[in-house]
C-alpha cells in the first residue's frame, strides 16, 4: 500500500473516533433506576456509551447492581445513589443485587 492509500484507509477511522467522542461529551445523559421495595424500576434501561446510570436506593438496606458476567458491580448504600459510567462496552448486561439475588435488571448499551 502506498502512502496515499494509507491516508485514505485511515481517514474513516479518524472521523468515526471524532464522532464517538463528540457524542460522548455533547449528549451524555444520566439515566435513573429507582430501588424501592426490593425492585429495580424500570427493570430495563437503554443507555449509550458515555451515559451515566444511577441507582437511587429508597430501601432501608444496602443493595448492589452486579453484572451477571461479573465485569462490574455498583455499591448502593441505603438511602444513597450508586453510579456507573457506561464505557466503550456496548451490549446487553443482565444484573442482579448480590445481597438479594431475586432482584434483577438489565442495561442495554448502544454505541
Amino acid at each position, binding site marked *: 500500500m502506498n502512502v496515499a492509500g494509507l491516508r485514505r484507509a485511515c481517514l474513516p477511522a479518524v472521523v468515526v473516533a471524532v464522532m464517538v467522542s463528540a457524542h460522548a461529551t455533547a449528549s451524555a445523559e444520566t439515566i435513573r433506576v429507582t430501588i424501592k*421495595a426490593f425492585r429495580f424500576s424500570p427493570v430495563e434501561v437503554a443507555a449509550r456509551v458515555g451515559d451515566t446510570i444511577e441507582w437511587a436506593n429508597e430501601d432501608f438496606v444496602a443493595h448492589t447492581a452486579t453484572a451477571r458476567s461479573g465485569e462490574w458491580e455498583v455499591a448502593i448504600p441505603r438511602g444513597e445513589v450508586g453510579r456507573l459510567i457506561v464505557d466503550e462496552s456496548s451490549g446487553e448486561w443482565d444484573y442482579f443485587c448480590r*445481597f*438479594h439475588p431475586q432482584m434483577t435488571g438489565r442495561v442495554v448499551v448502544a454505541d
Partner: protein
Amino acid sequence: MLARLIGFAAAITMLFGVANVYAADLNDTQIAHIAYTAGQIDIAAAELALEKSSNEDVRRFAENMVSDHTAVNEQALALVEKLGVTPEDNETSQTLSKQADLKRAELAGLSGPAFDRAYVENEVAYHQAVNDALANLLIPAASNEELKALLSTGLEIFTGHQQHAENVLEMIQ
C-alpha cells in the same frame, strides 16, 4: 391451619430439633420477639464468621448479614415502640437461642475452609427454616397489619439471603 402447623413444626424441627411448638397460641408480642431473636442469632453467627473467616466472599456475606438484620431489627424496635407494646419472651424464642448457642459453639471449633463451608451451609438451612416459618405461620398468625407488613418485608430480604448464601456456597466449594 394444620398444614401451616406441620410446615412450621418441620421448620422448627430442622432448626432447633424440637417439634412440640404450639404455634397457634402465639400472639403478636411473641411473634415480634421470635422474629427479633431470629435476627440477633444471625448477627451473632455473622460476627463469629467475621472473627474466623479470611474468605472474601464469606466475609462480604457476613457483613451484609450484620447490616441487613440490624436494619430489620431497628425497624422492629421502632414499630413496637410506636405500638407501645413490649416483645414477650416465649418458649420458641428460648429454644431458638439455646439451639443457636450450640450451633455457634460447634462452628467455633472449626477453622479455615471447613468453617467457611459449615457456616454458609448453616446460613442456607437457617434462612430456609426462618423463611418457611415466616411464610407459613408467623405472617398469617400476626394480627397487627404493620407487624404483618414488616414480617413480609423481612421474608423478602431473607429470601435474598438464602439465595446469596447458596451462591456463596457454590463459590467456595
